[in-house]
């Protein structure tokens, strides 16, 4: 028998959701400061209106649902999933008010794309967008990349055991440090240190590229936030092509790869354990899959003679590949060039790379390297069992911070999530095909949305059907949360209707 959720369940969810909404609202102070600094009157008003509405809702929720009870697993999961929907709705407010998005749905699309660190965009006339709004687009990637719940855990929630339940609900199943709040703070520390270094590096390269100093550092900060959080938004409509610069591309490749690494691994590198990089199953799998998918892409491009020079093959082929594999979505080509010039084989290479993703407990989406590594190890184990004599004991191990014996439950969990992602990629492709797009193009865009990548072959634009926009929004949300909290929310809603 399914238990119908009671008022205490709703209050617990509402109270902590309210806190997260307040936390999110307070982050809007940053674009307000930028708006004031750059004397942008109307954009500043957009953010003041948005912060007021967000704080109003947050305050009302915390007051109406006030509770001192701790959270259970179901509530934690539901808060995680609902907080992303709330963030999308409230985060879209300033975007919509700017007039650069055709509808509130389009603004929500970009807000979800930002928070989920996807990078697909429906913004109009981006090259004339204010500094305040442009910063917000990138800031939501930074917030979403660390995790909306992480923001709340770091600054607004004073240690409680329910914190871990929300943390897990946000697709972070690994704790860097024993305490989840310390883990959240460490994630912020890493991100802030890299933000300063990355902004400096990109700012200096920007100045050397001939950009104005203020723009070089503003772009540097924005591009860093979107690259490290494997987002993919850029301040200009040409994305990274705007800079026409090999050094800029090299720095962004390095930042994208840093963003695709497990925060736990970052911790060990910071603690001086640099050898872990060469032993860890995730980094080894990431290296192997990058090489493999690049080989497929390169063969496809060379066969068609798309880029008849090694440098061009690197700057276009390898860049797009790393961008897709790390789930960033930065582009140095135009979206239609994928369709017109790349050919099916190169597209398949990119689709596979996008579908695989980066490390667990990083800012990337998709299936992720630990799961791919585990599935591969399980396959090896099964092959050994077939080849070796029946009485031989076959034991498989893998290295992930420490030596771990491969168990069936790990393999089952990895296969379950992998299967869920494959279904999600396929679902979006079917919807795309329903609206008349060819299979490969529909699969490309669907994988990009569900794996939170952001590379586009041109399907994503303001004129695409609203149903397809909703589909991609759903895919970005479910893909970012890695399904469990989404399933829990669906179960909660079913219980509310059918439960006793």
């Amino acid at each position, binding site marked *: 028998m399914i238990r119908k959720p009671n008022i205490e369940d709703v209050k617990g969810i509402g109270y902590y959701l309210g806190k997260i909404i307040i936390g999110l609202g307070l982050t809007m102070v940053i674009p307000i400061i930028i708006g004031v600094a750059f004397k942008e009157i109307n954009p500043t*008003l957009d953010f003041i209106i948005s912060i007021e509405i967000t704080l109003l809702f947050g305050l*009302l929720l915390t007051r109406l649902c006030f509770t001192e009870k701790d959270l259970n697993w179901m509530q934690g999961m539901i808060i995680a999933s609902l907080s992303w929907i709330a963030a999308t709705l409230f985060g879209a407010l300033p975007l919509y008010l700017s007039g650069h998005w055709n509808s509130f749905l389009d603004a929500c699309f970009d807000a979800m794309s930002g928070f989920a660190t996807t990078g697909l965009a429906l913004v109009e006339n981006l090259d*004339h967008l204010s500094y305040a709004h442009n910063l917000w687009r990138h800031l939501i990637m930074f917030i979403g990349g660390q995790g909306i719940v992480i923001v709340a855990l770091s600054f607004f929630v004073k240690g409680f055991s329910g914190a871990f339940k929300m943390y897990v609900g946000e697709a972070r199943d690994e704790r860097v440090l024993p305490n989840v709040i310390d883990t959240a703070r460490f994630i912020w520390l890493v991100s802030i240190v890299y933000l300063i270094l990355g902004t400096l590096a990109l700012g200096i390269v920007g100045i050397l590229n001939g*950009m104005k100093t203020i723009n070089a550092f503003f772009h540097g900060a924005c591009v860093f936030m979107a690259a490290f959080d494997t987002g993919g938004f850029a301040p200009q409509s040409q994305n990274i092509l705007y800079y026409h610069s090999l050094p800029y591309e090299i720095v962004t490749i390095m930042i994208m790869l840093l963003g695709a690494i497990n925060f736990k691994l970052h911790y060990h590198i910071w603690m001086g354990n640099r050898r872990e990089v060469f032993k860890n199953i995730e980094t080894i799998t990431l290296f192997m899959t990058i090489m493999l998918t690049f080989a497929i892409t390169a063969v496809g491009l060379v066969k068609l003679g798309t880029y008849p020079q090694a440098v061009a093959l690197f700057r276009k082929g390898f860049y797009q590949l790393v961008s897709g594999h790390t789930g960033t979505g930065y582009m140095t080509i135009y979206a239609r060039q994928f369709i017109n010039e790349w050919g099916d084989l190169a597209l398949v290479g990119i689709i596979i790379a996008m579908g695989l993703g980066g490390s667990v407990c990083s800012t990337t989406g998709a299936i992720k390297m630990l799961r791919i590594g585990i599935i591969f190890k399980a396959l090896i184990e099964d092959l050994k069992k077939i080849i070796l004599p029946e009485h031989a004991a076959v034991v498989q191990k893998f290295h992930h911070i420490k030596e771990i014996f491969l168990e069936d439950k790990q393999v089952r969990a990895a296969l379950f999530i992998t299967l869920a992602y494959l279904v999600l990629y396929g679902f979006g492709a079917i919807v795309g095909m329903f609206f008349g797009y060819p299979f490969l193009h529909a699969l490309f865009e669907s994988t990009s949305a569900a794996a939170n990548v952001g590379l586009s072959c041109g399907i994503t634009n303001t004129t695409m059907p609203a149903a397809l926009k909703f589909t991609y929004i759903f895919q970005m949300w479910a893909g970012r949360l890695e399904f469990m909290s989404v399933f829990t929310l669906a179960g909660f809603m079913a219980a509310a209707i059918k439960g006793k």
Partner: protein
Amino acid sequence: MKKLFNLKGVVLNIILLCTLHFTQYSAFAQPISSDELINNAKLFDGKSVIYIGEVVGDIMIRGEYAWINVLDGKNAIGIWAGKDLIKGIAYTGSYKFKGDVVEVSGVFHRACLQHGGDLDIHAQSLTKIIAGRPTQEMPNFKKGNTVILLLGALVLIWILTLLKRR
């Protein structure tokens, strides 16, 4: 009879090819949109084209040349131009400025070998056809009123919360 049909087909094909050939060249003499250039990049590759649009973002000087990005309303395309060609550009498009609209005549590259495979135009001439200007930002009073109204509501809830606590 069969031969006659074949002959007709050949003549028709020649007429069609000639038409395509000449319309193609006449099109190159006309301004070409970014969509056309991107969607037919192989066709225009290495050809002289005319492209019109607003200069947006930074003018990035690289030695004796510079990169500018020109937006025709749909897409921005990178223009590689000599420093002397871009001297006349006074405004580039951003939130506070409407950039100069320029007509660029130059060679289009689908995957420029000089620039790591970029889709770009190497400018041979560049003419400013509409001067840019700072855009006047008029404060939106509706938004101002909404700010005050919402602030009132927020303060009210805050006070009610404080009263409830007491």
